[in-house]
């Protein structure tokens, strides 16, 4: 199974709930190659977001392990996983998650600065140009429309040229036209930078653009 950018081996996530232990992710194994794209689809509550979090090292599995470019995430501590993310991983969220206190440019520069890259500013400006926001660099998130905010988020995700990009319903908060445009942009950027894409979505059209589609229900791959 070695050789993929992202490998999951028999992942299990169990949590305590008022009604007793609850298994949200059950025995999920997968292997994704470099540059590949994979959509995770399934009904609400299926455990898609949870799986994404496990693959990205945002959370630790109860069982199994995740290898990201050969690094075992379960063997790293919180800061170790953070450092790995800084270097290799990008994120796009449904709720955009831009920092309201920072301008579009500063938001895009942030991951580079966190990874101590030099030339953060130029790289950020360049990426903003690619998402079509060259003239909005000084704007704060609340001065931008939803679609524009998500484009800033895309720029932020791609600016580090990550090995893997995780997106959790990136079009979920947008109307269908804007959503389609964001989806288009996402795949363009992905193709340009040879990034591996893991995409959780309810959007059928977006899912079909991925090379692989992973269907989940009640924590299992179906």
């Amino acid at each position, binding site marked *: 199974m070695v050789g993929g950018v992202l490998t999951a081996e028999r992942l299990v996530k169990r949590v305590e709930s008022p009604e007793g232990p609850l298994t949200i992710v059950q025995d999920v194994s997968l292997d994704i190659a470099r540059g590949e794209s994979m959509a995770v689809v399934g009904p609400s509550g299926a455990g898609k977001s949870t799986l994404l979090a496990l693959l990205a090292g945002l959370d630790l599995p109860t069982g199994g392990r995740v290898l990201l470019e050969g690094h075992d995430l379960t063997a790293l501590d*919180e800061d170790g996983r*953070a450092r790995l993310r800084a270097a290799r991983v990008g994120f796009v969220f449904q709720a955009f998650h831009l920092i309201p206190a920072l301008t579009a440019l500063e938001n895009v520069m942030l991951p580079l600065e966190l990874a101590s890259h030099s030339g953060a500013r130029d790289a950020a400006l360049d990426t903003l140009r690619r998402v079509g926001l060259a003239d909005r660099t000084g704007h704060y998130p609340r001065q931008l429309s939803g679609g524009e905010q998500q484009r800033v988020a895309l720029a932020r995700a791609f600016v580090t040229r990550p090995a893997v990009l995780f997106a959790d319903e990136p079009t979920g908060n947008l109307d269908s036209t804007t959503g389609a445009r964001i989806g288009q942009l996402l795949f363009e950027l992905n193709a340009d930078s040879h990034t591996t894409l893991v995409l959780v979505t309810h959007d059928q059209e977006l899912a079909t653009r991925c090379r692989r589609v992973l269907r989940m229900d009640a924590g299992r791959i179906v």
Partner: protein
Amino acid sequence: MRSIRFALRMLGREWRSGELGVLLLALTIAVAALTGVGFLVSRISAAVAMRATQVLAADIRVESARPIADAVFVRAASMGLSRAHATGMLSVVFDGERSELADLYAVTAGYPLRGKVLVATHLFAQGTPASAVPPPGVVWADSRLLAALGGHVGSQLSIGAATLRVGRVLISRPDQGGTFTSLVPNLLMNAADLPRTQLIQPGSRVRYSALFSGDPRQVAAFETWLRTHLRPGEQVRDIADTSPQIGGAVSRADRFLSLASLVAVLLCAAAVAMSARRYVARHLDLVALLKTLGATRRFTLRLTTLELLAVAAIASLLGASIGYLAQAWLVYALRGVLTHGTLPAASLTPVAMGLLTAVALLAGFALPPLWRLSRTPAIRVLRRDIGPPPLSVLLAFGPSAGVIAALIAWVVLDVRLFLEFTAGLAAFLALLFAAGMLLVRAAARLRGHVGVAWRYGIANLGRRRIDSVVQIVAFGVGIMALLLLGIIRNDLDGAWRGSLPADLPNYFFINIPPQSRDAFIAYLRSHGARTSRMLPMIRGRLTAIDGRPVESMRFPGRRGEHFATREQNLSWASALGPDNRIVAGRWWAPSERGAPLVSIATEFERWLGLRLGDELTFDVAGDSLTVRVASVRKVKWDSFQPNFFIVFAPGLLEKETGTYLTSAYLTPDQARALAQLARTFPSVSIFDIDDLLNDVRAVMDKAVLAVQSVFVFTLLAGLTVLLAAVQSSRDERRYEGAMLRTLGASRATVLQGVLAEFAALGALAGLLAAAGASVAAWFLTTRVLDLHYAFSPGACAIGFAGGIVLVAVSGWLATRSVVNQPPLGALRRGPG
């Protein structure tokens, strides 16, 4: 580096959005209150120290029975100090046939180096400052001496072999000693005339004094040098010997000012804690996001800490400036009240203290929440309900409790007061919290009996129980501070001014022979003087404590040495004066007449390290007398009534030959009769303390004004707490209000609900505040200020009603904009 840049950028941005306003306000007020008071107290103490140096007529002096070595003067000259000589001796002075024993004091030019010599042209008149020492050939004799001799300005006095003319009436010289050591009338002369008198012969008893003054640091350096170069018999006196009256007034003001500023600081701490809570709530998402993007936990902690430190730095700067300005204004407003000299410049230590306070407040109250904030898991970017794990109790409350305890200890500097205050505070907060809990629960019961708006409001209180209790406590503490100030302010002003009424005794009479005691009182009364109590005074020496001779014992301070080795004034009394309060043991009963008991003042207890039940042995005129310490008294020296450190039970000292002592208030007109009195009772010594009294009054006035200005800080601190409480509740209500409106509730319903909730909150807080303020007022007035406490039901009613109105209105104002917002924006931002 990254984090600093990032933190500054965040600061700049959050700054503009008003995010950090309350935190900055709270820290600024805390710093301003502490530095303002610090500045003021340091300057007032410096002024008191200056007043004390006037008693020495110098900053430091050396006394000896032999001429003082030239080396001392040479050294002083090389250090740039001002110098003067004073030579004192007792000698009989003649005016024709009549003669009187006088204390001759021969001085060189420059005397006095501190304070003023007051002179007049008539006996017992008001003095005016003299500009120089008496020229050669001229003496200034005091009223009592001239009265006894029947002399006046222009009389020729024979002093030893010389004849000198009386140039002025000496009203007072600064170093004549308010401590009753000099019981003889005074005469001031020029040192150049001394050889002509031929009074200094081998064997004559002469006191040589060398006086020095100058820059405080030079003086301190000189004193160090002196202590190692003293010859046997030479004694150094410095400002440690101050008069207890002024010291008492200042330390009381100091204590109160410090406590008032402490209350302001504690209130600010509450505001800081609430702001920090809010800061954490509003930065959970940021921290989770930063971590998702690859930030380490250290980075996020450093980032938030740096941001708050920057706020602390700004607050310190602002606060210290405000504190300095407030103090400068106060000093300006009070210019001229101290009769002698100007106030020395403020020292800069309070600024450092202010900075330290701001950092300590942050460390104790904001760092634990920040620590917790940094533990927000990255997964929160996907699941908003996941927050950081709660802190352990020790980590959550330990640092803040530690900081509070340290602050209190630093301010009160007194173990007993510290324990009382902290225990009181802890009990008070626990009680407040418990009461808040109970009230919230009781309110929940009301739910079924009220309309929909109230039901919604009260339901909210119950649902967020802990938050509601925290808010009730915060509101309660804020309102309580305001109430407390209202209750004790007037009492305090009155009691303070009342403790130094205009007709306070301004003359002391010493050495009244027992046989003329009644005649003396009758004489004073017949001249309209208002007399105080009459106490016997017997000279004695402490020889042993618990059987151990005092010579073989060591005492903590110089005062202890002093008391253990010098002759003491002893007294006896059957009744306890109203200006004395027993703090340990008990006063004797009439049946204990003749029992070997003694009562000592708290100062004496402290300086000699005595305890209740210790056996003290005194040598009184050759008789050895052993008595047991039966009680310790706290003496209000500023009553200006005769008071003694050591008071025996009646029936022990009556057989010893002593004299009597009393004080009286005389108007300037009545004081003229003193010339006649001095002639009728030649052995009685008269001490005019009018000057001293005026100084004490000035200090008191200063204290009252200072206290009022510190109240302003406390008031602001209380309001800040209210603001922080409103703000913290606003965030939650913004989300709920929007949600309710989305569900179809009208604006009016939502507003009414909010109003109901705040009114309920205010009522509960007001109830707690009224009770709390009454208890705190009692504690402050009786325990800290030694004043009388009167319960004030009106203030309680105001607190209750005021609480409802204040909280409801401010809450409504703060939430109104929220309710008016379109719901979508608020919902998108989410709760918290």
